[in-house]
Structures are given as C-alpha cells and as structure tokens.
C-alpha cells in the first residue's frame, strides 16, 4: 500500500439513519395492532350474522364466526386468533344461542362449538404463523441478496480507496443498522493513522491488534473488527458497532463477511490499478529523462565537435594551411563557441522556467531599445540575413523585463534565420492595441505545419526529434513561451503571408502588477 497515492484520511465511517418517529410508540402499536384487528373481526362477524339471521339457521351462523377466526389466524398468527376464537364464541353465544343474552355453556352442543372455535383457531394460527415466519425469512434473504448485489455493483465502480470506503460504510451501516468504519494498511505492520479516526484510543488499539493478528476481534466498547485479508497481505480492517446490544444473527454475520470479501476484492483491484499507474508514470518519466539527456548531450557535443575538429586541424596541419583556411577554422571555433554559449544560456533559462525560479525584473521599457540589441546579435551570428522593422510611432512604454524580452526576440530571430533563406528579409512589426502590445516576427522559410503549431512550444517536441534537427534548435521556442508567460504575455504561431512562419507575441500594456 502506497500512502503517497492518496493523502486523504484513510478512515471513513458512517452511522445508521435514525428513524424520525418515537421508537417506543411505534413498537407498542405494532404489538397491539393484531389484537385490535381480531376484536374488529369479531364485531364484523356479529354484524354480518345479525344481518343474515333471518335467512340462516342459528347453527350456520357459527360458520361466519369461524371464517373470521380463520382469516385472523392466517393473517395475524396464534395470539390474535385465540383471542378472536374466545370472543367469537362469547359473541355468538350471547347474541344467537339460547338462552339469549347469557354466556352460560348450557349444553354439550355449546361446549362442542367452543371447542371447534378454539381448535380451528389454534391449528390455522400455528400453521399460518409458521408460513408467515418462513415468508419473512425468504423476504429478508431476498432483501439481503438484493443489497449484496447492489453493494457489489456499487463498489465495482469505486475508483479510489476513499470512494470505496464511503460505499462500503454506507452499505454495511444500512444493512446491519450499525456504525461502520474502514481503516487501511499504512505499511506491512500498522494501520494508516488510526489516531485521527473517530475511534477511541482503546478501540484504535483493538483495530491495530485485529490488523496484525488477522483475527476478528470484539472490543468491550461494542466495536467489532474484521481483517480485510487480501491474497498477499492484510489490506486493512473493517469495524462495526451495532446500535442494539444484541449479537449479529448467523445470517447477518454471513452477510457481513460476504460484504467484507467483496470489499477486499475491490480494494485489491484499486491497489493494483494505482500500482500500475505509478509504474507507468515512472517509466514515462524515465523515458523523458533519457530523451532529454541524449538531446542535451547532442546539442552540447555538436558545437564541440566542430570546435575540437577545427582546433586540432589548426594544430596538426597548421603549417600546410593557407591563411584563408586558417581564418575559416578560427571562425568556426568562435562561431561554435558562441553557439555553445547561447545553448548553455537556453539551458539555464529552461531550468529556471522549469523550477519557477525565473523572476522578471520589470521597468518601463521602450520596445525599440529591446529590438536593437537582438538584431545586432543576430547579424553577428547570421551576417547575411536582413531584418525589416515596422514599428508603430505611437508606441507607449511597456512595464516589463528588457533582458528576458531581448532573449525572446533573439531566439525567434535566430530560428527565423536558421530556417529561412537569407535572400528574403525577416519582418519585425510592433503595434499597440488598447491593452496590449503585439509583436510579430515573420519569415519566408518553410513554415510550420498546422498540426505542429502548438507542439513546437512543447519541450518534449524538441526532445522527440533527437539529433535529426540542427543542434540547439527548437528548445528556443519552449523557452520563449516560458519567458513570455513569465512576463504576463504569450506567444503563438500562425502561417505567414507567404510560405513562412509568423510568430505573434503579446505583452500587456497596463498590467504592471502581473510582472
């Protein structure tokens, strides 16, 4: 179990929902109700017998009372049916059997009648109550199966441990009418922060004990803990505390264990998924690191190869070289050294952007004064390329970091010169809008395919191309994006007017607070 994946508290508990109506009143009513119904049945039988008296013989009227007793016995069980039998006989003998208006058992016929009522009431009552209790067991089992099914389905959708714990606690609490708590393993030998859970200290200790021994444990406070035993190790502990002091029935104990087992399966699935995700992430990071390393080493080595090559040629063949060749080789050494220097600067910038350590030092800046040095650096690196400037006269000063901005300008001009032919000029325009300055740098190079126009600002895009592109290129765009964002602006790429690339930079004019 890796605690780094989820930092949320590892325990979740729920309490059963309390019923709104007063408990004892409902209880009393449910007890008395069948007897009231039995009395009503006798009243109804008497009323019916009175109505039918003129058509039926007195003996036949007993059948009406008997029917009432049977119905009561079937629906309400033995107690009410016996009451119904006694009362039915009393009502019959008082109202219909001679002498009228007495309860005297005069003849053997009367005794027989009473006996018949009682036997009928007893037999049907007993049978009916058996059937009813069987039925309620079947209903209960069906309800539990349904709940278990709901539970299994519910937890199958849980995507993390917290969600799983919530679902498990909800279901177990609702099914067993208890308090439920789920605690996760924090390592091989202890639970994750039981101290911060809702448990008392002794109960937390009991939970720990249950976890280490892997045995079900009943604490004195009423909490019971069952271990969540996975296929390899114990994954945690499930605790319940019943609202009533009774022990769980056999049936409910099985149900609890079934839910526990389902929870364990779900938990193992979640742990496995998290583990796989982390492995995948590690692999991805490793791959990126390797690609970055090889890309950086390529970018550093390529200029070094030219420098070492030119310098060793000068040393080993110096006397045989013509002056112009010697000059060319020295140029190579100088050009490649400054390329290396620029690359190291880029690496530094990139690292600072990556760590968020880049702190712009803003001041009021005239953008024309930033453009100048960038163009001078470019003509040092690419003497043949020309830059056409088109800068609006009504350009206000901008609150920004001139050093970082110059680096962006140079990187973009450098890219343009690298890819575009020297025969056509690079155009740099600056316009002011209401809230922002818009700087455009456009070349007549091969352009960037639409699908890659956002990707080129991605560090990884450069990395993926490996050594197939000129050394030190591409990283510049990722850096430009990083610098522009740090300055409160942005940079996007569009297709140029002809074939080339149009880089569009925006800088806020009034957002001094953003820098």
């Amino acid at each position: 179990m890796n605690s780094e994946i989820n930092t949320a508290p590892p325990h979740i508990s729920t309490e059963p929902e309390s019923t709104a109506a007063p408990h004892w009143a409902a209880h009393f009513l449910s007890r008395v109700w069948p007897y009231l119904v039995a009395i009503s049945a006798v009243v109804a039988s008497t009323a019916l017998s009175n109505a039918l008296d003129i058509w039926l013989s007195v003996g036949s009227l007993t059948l009406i009372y008997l029917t009432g007793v049977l119905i009561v016995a079937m629906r309400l069980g033995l107690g009410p049916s016996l009451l119904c039998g006694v009362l039915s006989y009393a009502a019959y003998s008082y109202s219909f059997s001679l002498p009228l208006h007495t309860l005297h058992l005069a003849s053997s016929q009367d005794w027989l009648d009473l006996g018949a009522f009682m036997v009928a009431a007893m037999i049907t009552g007993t049978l009916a109550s058996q059937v009813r209790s069987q039925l309620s067991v079947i209903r209960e089992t069906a309800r539990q199966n349904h709940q278990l099914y709901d539970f299994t389905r519910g937890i199958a959708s849980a995507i993390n441990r917290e969600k799983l714990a919530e679902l498990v606690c909800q279901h177990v609490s609702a099914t067993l009418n208890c308090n439920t708590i789920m605690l996760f393993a924090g390592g091989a030998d202890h639970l994750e922060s039981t101290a911060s859970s809702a448990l008392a200290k002794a109960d937390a200790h009991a939970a720990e004990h249950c976890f280490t021994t892997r045995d079900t444990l009943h604490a004195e406070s009423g909490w019971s803990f069952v271990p969540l035993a996975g296929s390899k190790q114990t994954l945690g502990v499930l605790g319940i505390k019943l609202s009533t002091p009774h022990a769980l029935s056999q049936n409910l104990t099985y149900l609890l264990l079934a839910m526990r087992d389902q929870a364990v399966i779900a938990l193992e699935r979640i742990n496995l998924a998290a583990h796989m995700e982390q492995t995948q992430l590690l692999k991805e990071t490793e791959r990126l690191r390797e690609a970055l390393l090889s890309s950086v080493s390529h970018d550093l080595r390529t200029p070094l190869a030219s420098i070492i090559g030119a310098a060793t040629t000068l040393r080993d063949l110096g006397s045989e070289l013509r002056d112009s060749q010697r000059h060319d080789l020295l140029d190579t050494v100088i050009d490649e050294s400054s390329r290396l220097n620029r690359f190291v600067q880029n690496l530094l910038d990139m690292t600072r952007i990556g760590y968020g350590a880049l702190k712009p030092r803003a001041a009021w800046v005239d953008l024309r004064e930033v453009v100048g040095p960038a163009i001078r650096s470019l003509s040092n690196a690419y003497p043949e390329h020309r830059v056409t400037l088109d800068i609006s006269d009504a350009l206000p000063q901008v609150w920004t970091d001139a050093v970082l901005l110059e680096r962006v300008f140079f990187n973009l001009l450098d890219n343009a010169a690298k890819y575009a032919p020297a025969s056509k000029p690079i155009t740099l325009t600056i316009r002011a809008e209401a809230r922002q300055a818009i700087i455009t740098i456009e070349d007549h190079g091969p352009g960037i395919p639409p699908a890659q126009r956002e990707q080129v600002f991605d560090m990884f895009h450069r990395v993926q191309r490996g050594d197939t592109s000129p050394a030190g290129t591409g990283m510049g765009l990722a850096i430009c994006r990083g610098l522009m964002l740090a300055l409160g602006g942005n940079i996007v790429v569009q297709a140029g007017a002809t074939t080339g690339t149009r880089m569009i930079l925006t800088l806020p004019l009034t957002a001094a607070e953003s820098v």
Partner: protein
Amino acid sequence: MKSSQIRILIVDDEAQIRRFLRIALETQGYEVIEAASGREGLSQFAQHPPQLVLLDLGLPDLDGKQVLKDLRSRSNVPVMILSVREDEDEKVAALDAGANDYVAKPFGAAELSARIRAVLRAHNGHQASQPVLRCGDLTIDVSRREVTAAGKAVKLSKKEFEILHLLTHNAGRVLTHSYILHTLWGPEHEHDTQYLRVYVGQLRAKLNDDPAKPHYIANEPGVGYRMLDHAV
C-alpha cells in the same frame, strides 16, 4: 600512397563540421564533396562516386542508417560513421549494417585521418587478397599458416589463426563480436561473445600482448575488436 585521386563524400547537416572537414581533408590531398542531407548525399554519391563516405547518423530527412543501407545496396564503398550517438548498440548496429568504422563526435583531425587511411588501406587490401599480410612487426603468411610477431615465430591453433587473420586483414577497423563470430563460427554462434573472448585471450597470451596496453589487438568495449594499425 598517392591520395590525390581519392574523393571523399561528407554527409552531415552541420555546416561547421563540413567546413573544417573540407579544410582538413583537402589539405591532406583528398578531393571533398559535401551533402547536407541524406537524399542529397545519395544523389551526390550517384553523380560523383567517391572512394570513401563520411556519414552522420542524425540527418534531417533520412536516418543515417537508412542512407547506409541504400549505399550498401548499390556499392561496397567504405563508409565511416561520424556521430554524437555514443550508445554501443548504435555502433554495433551501424557496423553490422555495413559501416567500415565508427568515429564518435567530437574527434580530433589526426585521429580521423588515421582512421580514414586505415579504412582505405583495409579496403584496398581486401580487394587484392595478399598471400602475406604485414601489420607493424606482425607477419602472417596466409598460405603456409605461419605467424611471426617481433621476429619470433608464434604457434597458433586453427581458430586463433583465423581470428588473427581476420583482424589483420581489416587492420585499423573495428570488427563487431557478432561479425567475427558469424564469419568464423557461423550464424548460430553469433551471440557467443564469451567464446570469442576466450580465444582472443589465448591469442593475446601467445602474441605476448598486454590487454591493458595492447600492441596488436585493441578491445572496443561493448562493440568488438580492432587490430591496431602500425603502418601509418
């Protein structure tokens, strides 16, 4: 050796590398033609067939290994790989794909010149199969299977002789483990590097060659062996 007729094709996308290579090679009497991409290299090769190709692996249009494959499909011209990729697997892959040597960037001008000469000599020697090979103070009489090192006769087993012959025949060139195994033991033993190591160890002992400071057989870790070329 007169090298004035020898034409070398440089295929590298870095202009600065091509510039210093051209100066260094032209000063040594080679004729130099250049290409900045794989396709340009292949078309240059077709138009002005060179006697040696210096090939960068990281090219903007085609992978260098693809260019090598294309070259090999039409010619057995010596090809030297120049690359910043220093991975041993890359080297082995390039050598097994038919490259004659592999020079890691950055490199010095003198080292490159020596390697170029060795590759050219091995290639020319290869074409005219000589009865007696000489490499520094090592002499191999192929027909009589006799070897003398520093004037003393050395008795070698059949396999030891074959290894020495193969390495000397390609003196100055690195031969990969799998190439040697494939050539002398057959394709099924291509990966039995340990096997080869044992034989080379025995061979070195008989030649009195110190592996730490080799005079004859140099080890290229993770890649193969190279017979040091003393005929510079």
